[in-house]
């Protein structure tokens, strides 16, 4: 949650009781992996998970709102209109205007595009890099494993927002700078998680068999480890997306996000909160609600996936 943090994924993994990299040092927490359920039964279980379906529906709705919305609802978000600043919702402007006279509804859509793009891109990049790193580290063992995991420890120790704010004072942030920087700060959480999985998979007979029968390390990683850790990876990716959206909003809220004319939910919230005392509710609550709904939607999808992929829970 609640906060902006790429440390957030670790936090979330801990909160849901999933194994983090630490579990490899706490043998008591290691659990035997259940047999992987078939993709078909997973889909069936997911559709029965009401929260998961609701979350997925919400994500789709927010994507439609952000991308199809601007095609149907035209608003000028480039030129300031000082004749219509802080206007209450009314005809022609369903959610009113902000302090620069920009249409709020139109801005919500544009902010949604930035949030979704950043969330999905970071989730994809960080999870891919982290999974490969964790799997290689776990399979290698020994000195290489130790060295690789120390790098993970270092990056996890410095909260992303401190680095991102610093970078924003040094470089001019674009969406690509943010995606790369946030991915570089977020992958270690995925790496810890996947390394933990790898360590328990490595001890299983089928991986052992593949190893003795001469399977090369890359072959074992891509053929045996990553496919079997896929469930953990996928669930982690949804939580990473939610965390990235929170960090982007926090960054923009503090004024270190994308510079204008880019629109971000955090920036809208920061500008609108200055008028909280004046009662301009339309400048605060719609964007706040949309931000929370988006994060909630990704978290719901993650919960749904986790429950339907985990056969241990499915019987309940």
């Amino acid at each position, binding site marked *: 949650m609640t906060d902006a943090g790429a440390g957030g994924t670790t936090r979330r993994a801990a909160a849901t009781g999933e194994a983090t990299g630490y579990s490899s040092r706490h043998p008591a927490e290691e659990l035997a992996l259940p047999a992987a359920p078939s993709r078909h039964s997973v889909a069936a279980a997911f559709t029965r998970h009401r929260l998961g379906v609701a979350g997925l529906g919400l994500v789709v709705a927010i994507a439609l709102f952000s991308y199809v919305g601007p095609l149907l609802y035209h608003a000028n978000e480039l030129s300031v209109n000082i004749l219509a600043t802080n206007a209450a919702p009314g005809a022609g402007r369903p959610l009113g205007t902000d302090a620069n006279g920009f249409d709020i509804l139109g801005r919500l859509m544009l902010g949604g595009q930035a949030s979704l793009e950043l969330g999905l891109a970071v989730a994809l990049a960080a999870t891919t890099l982290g999974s490969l790193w964790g799997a290689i580290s776990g399979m290698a063992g020994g000195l290489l494993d130790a060295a690789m995991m120390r790098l993970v420890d270092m990056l996890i120790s410095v909260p992303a927002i*401190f680095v991102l704010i610093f970078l924003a004072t040094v470089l001019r942030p674009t969406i690509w700078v943010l995606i790369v920087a946030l991915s570089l700060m977020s992958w270690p959480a995925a790496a810890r998680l996947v390394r933990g999985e790898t360590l328990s998979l490595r001890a299983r007979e089928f991986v052992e068999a593949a190893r003795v029968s001469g399977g090369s390390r890359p072959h074992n990683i891509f053929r045996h480890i990553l496919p079997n850790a896929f469930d953990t990876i996928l669930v982690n990716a949804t939580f990473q997306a939610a965390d990235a959206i929170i960090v982007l909003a926090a960054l923009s809220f503090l004024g270190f996000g994308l510079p204008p004319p880019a629109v971000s939910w955090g920036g809208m919230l920061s500008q609108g909160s200055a008028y909280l005392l004046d009662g301009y509710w339309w400048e605060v609550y719609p964007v706040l609600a949309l931000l929370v709904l988006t994060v909630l939607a990704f978290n719901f999808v993650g919960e749904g996936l986790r429950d339907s992929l985990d056969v241990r829970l499915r019987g309940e």
Partner: protein
Amino acid sequence: MIGYAIRRMLQSVVVLVGVTLIVFVLEHLVPGNLARAILGQRASPGEIAAFDRANGLGQPLVVQYIVFLGHVAEGNLGRSYRLNQSVDSLVAHELPNDLVLVGTALLLALCVAIPLGVAQAARRNTAFDHAATGVSFLLYSIPSYCLGLLLIAGLSIAAHVFPPEAPQAPSAAGVLGDPRALVLPVLTLTLVNVALFSRYMRSSAIATLAEDYVRVARAKGAGGWNLIRRHVLRNSLAAVVTLVGLSLPALLTSGLVIEYLFNFPGTGLTYFTAAVNSDYPVMLGITVLVGFTTVIGNLFADLSYAMLDPRVRYD
């Protein structure tokens, strides 16, 4: 155990050095050069050369890094060019305030979350459990600054119960002396963590309730509060220690944003102000400090976990 402790401490030293390396890399990302960034566009070449000499910027990077590492080891975190004050004295002044904010919030969160999580586990899948899970899920998806804004709107603007600004006294004693103004920032940070801790406590207590020793205790007739206190609470607490360690980066991140939102006089707000003023030494010094706090916090968490849980054997 001793072997594990020594190995774990050595690991932490490696990570601490790594944190300084990250900060050193960040420092050298400043475009153009540091002298230009600090002295401004109109600095003469002579002034820039003098600045470079004074700060050892002409030396090879490796030498610069070793000098930097030496400074950090001495507790010298650099000097603010804006405030003409050493970063360590600046931070030393504000750390007690941070401790008041973060420490109180952490303590309160644990006091609420541990009983809540255990109660949820004991009454699993009841209406109470579902309601508590729903609330914590919601809290958990609201970014801390949104939660803070909602609390300000509700408790400060609509109902004038608490002031929207944190205490503005310069010292920790002064901050503590204004408890009414302290309520909203502390409450925000507490709620954020209650959601996280209670979820974890719930799943940990559910796992403990399924253990054989709990079943044995039940078979022998122990039940109710006694069973929870002696067999479940004690054993689940060890897991919370790890969680507190793991959640430190998130806690410090929330701290930064909440200090900004409530104008709380702590290092987070100082970091923000330094960022607005492009006061790089302050930002880098605080980043080192934040990284060190996390590493040392995690070290303590792991060591206490090993001490609390006798089943854990490390080879």
